[in-house]
């Protein structure tokens, strides 16, 4: 086992711990934000944004998505599109029901 090899994993370990700390901070911020006296829309947006950052840290670094292979990206890009389609279109359909408009 070469030194460079084990060195790179040491660095990686350090990175993971940093990410762990970042996720902890994110969680703390979210909980804090939930008690802040803001308009509920703003509060929810803030909380979800932090959640997205946390999710990005986990998916990107812990799951190594930032340096994955093209085939994985292709699969995930389509998945994300359909995910957005599912969520977006159902909610849109819900909002577009005529008798609910202007209520």
């Amino acid at each position, binding site marked *: 086992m070469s030194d460079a090899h084990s060195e790179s994993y040491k660095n990686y370990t350090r990175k993971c711990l940093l990410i762990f700390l970042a996720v902890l901070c994110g969680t703390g911020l979210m909980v804090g934000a939930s008690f802040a006296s803001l308009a509920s829309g703003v509060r929810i947006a803030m909380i979800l944004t932090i959640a997205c950052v946390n999710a990005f840290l986990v998916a990107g670094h812990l799951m190594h998505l930032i340096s994955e292979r093209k*085939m994985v990206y292709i699969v995930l890009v389509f998945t994300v599109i*359909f995910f957005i*389609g*599912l969520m977006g*279109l*159902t909610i849109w*359909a819900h909002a577009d029901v*005529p008798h609910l*408009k202007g209520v």
Partner: protein
Amino acid sequence: MHATTQTMPHDPAHSAHHEAPGFWRSYIFSIDHKIIGIQYAITALAFLLFGFSLMAMMRWQIAHPGQSVPVVGPLLATLFGDVAAKGVMSADLYNTFGAMHGTIMVFLAVVPLLTGAFGNYLVPIQVGACDMAFPRLNMLSYQFYFVGGIIMFSSFFIPGGAAQSGWTSYPPLSLIVPTDGQTYWLLGMVFLITSSLLGSANIITTIIQLRAPGMTWLRLPFFTWAQFVASFLLLLAFPPLEAAGVMQLMDKVTGSSLFLPTGLAVGGKVAEVAGGGSPVLWQHLFWFLAHPEVYVLILPALGIVAEVIANNTRKPIWGYKSLVFASLALGFVSFIVWAHHMYLTGMGTTIATFFQTTTMIISIPSVIILTCLLISLWGGSIRFNTPMLFALAFLPMFGIGGLTGLPLGFSASDLHLHDTYYVIGHFHYVVAPGTIFGLFAGIYFWYPKLTGRFMNEFWGRVHFWGSLIFMNVVFMPMFAQGLAGMLRRMSDGGINYSKAQVGLEGALSPTIMELNHVILWGAVGLGLSQIPFILNLFWSIKHGEKIPNDNPWDATTLEWQTETPPYVYNFRREPIVYRGPYEYSVPGCDKDFLPQNQPDQPTSKP
């Protein structure tokens, strides 16, 4: 293209521990994709027959409401008791049979045949692999399917019988029917969905990872492409229905009201539920699967038809690339058209416009595919054998089915047509004389590969002509009935409705009602036409005409370039692929076909 050469698993050191694995290991708990494919085929064909018999009994009830079902009436009475007193099908039993007919046909018969049987058996061989990427998961996938099937089937015999709310299982109805059938249905679906997820991930991985050297993406046979797209549809569209299934299970079992609205009244009384839920939510999640599902039903059938047509016209498929890209487009767009099944849910005009537009867009790739296949016939020297007859008949039948979909895709015309027999006619044209003809073509075509013998040609033709004629006798009148306003899912075939409205606008005329008898006899004829097929299927295993060599149809794709039936690991030596899938009648060759694994002929030096 990479050029790794793998030593194929044929060295004796490996085969030592594979000797004589015993009956259970080789046939029941096999991890060989070919055996699993055959297991799927047998189970699914049995379900196909069962699903058909349910419908045959229902057609009797529709044509002769309240009269004892002939032949099987006494059996029904013994099996189901009160709901089939004196062999007469009650409305409850009718609803049960209807719901289970749809469920069985879609989830237990046709899709498992297409992907579980044909996909499992053929995809690994067509890409030149020795098995699926995950053989054990493959076995598990069949086992989940089998258990799901058992759950569905056994639900017929529980008190209260099987599910009664259609294959679509719309709440609130599905939740307020007081019997347990729906719980079984949901449980069964969870198993079937899990099975299908395992299967589709497996097929996709196999195609991505196990292609033989030289098998580039654009050298894949169209059948494999179709399986690839269909597997993606299953992989990504089924999970939301699984989510919805779990939610409905929660409602049914724990009494939550995720799908039950506030103020729901059952039998004139406000129901004892928390309310606040949404039945429309179920419809969204259901159709998010079920629309892509219809393309799962059709794409692999198109794949089979393309293979059969290329082989029997002795000429390359016209527009192979267009076919591939059209299927990809079809797959993509099929995820965003689902709400065309929901125009009548009080949907707003903006969103309805969106879904009408995407629905019209999706018919473009469908038409491209059909056109490619039609043009492929042009100028070919067509061999008319049974597989080809089925493949040829598939084209116009699928055409009728597709074209009748267009009026349904516009909300203005769908307001009238929704929930009528017109819809039933539409989708049965795509699925029955469409997909099922594709399946028959495939069975007649690949049977020699499995057994080393042809199926009998004469009885094949009897089967074909009987099926073609009676399919149309059954389904064509439904368009007329639907246009006249006959609703689907009525256990008396609309007779009460018509009697109550005699002379009024909208009452069904005697002619329209008379068509119910025509359809009944069509269904009987259709059933009888399957007898030669069933006998042929078994008889030919031992007595069919022997094939002259391993490639009796002179085909190009890899499954025909190995022995019959294929060796356990498919190929004795890993095939190397040199060319596309449909090199028929290449000018300057001594044979009229060039197998994919045949190297270029050495050009004679001047």
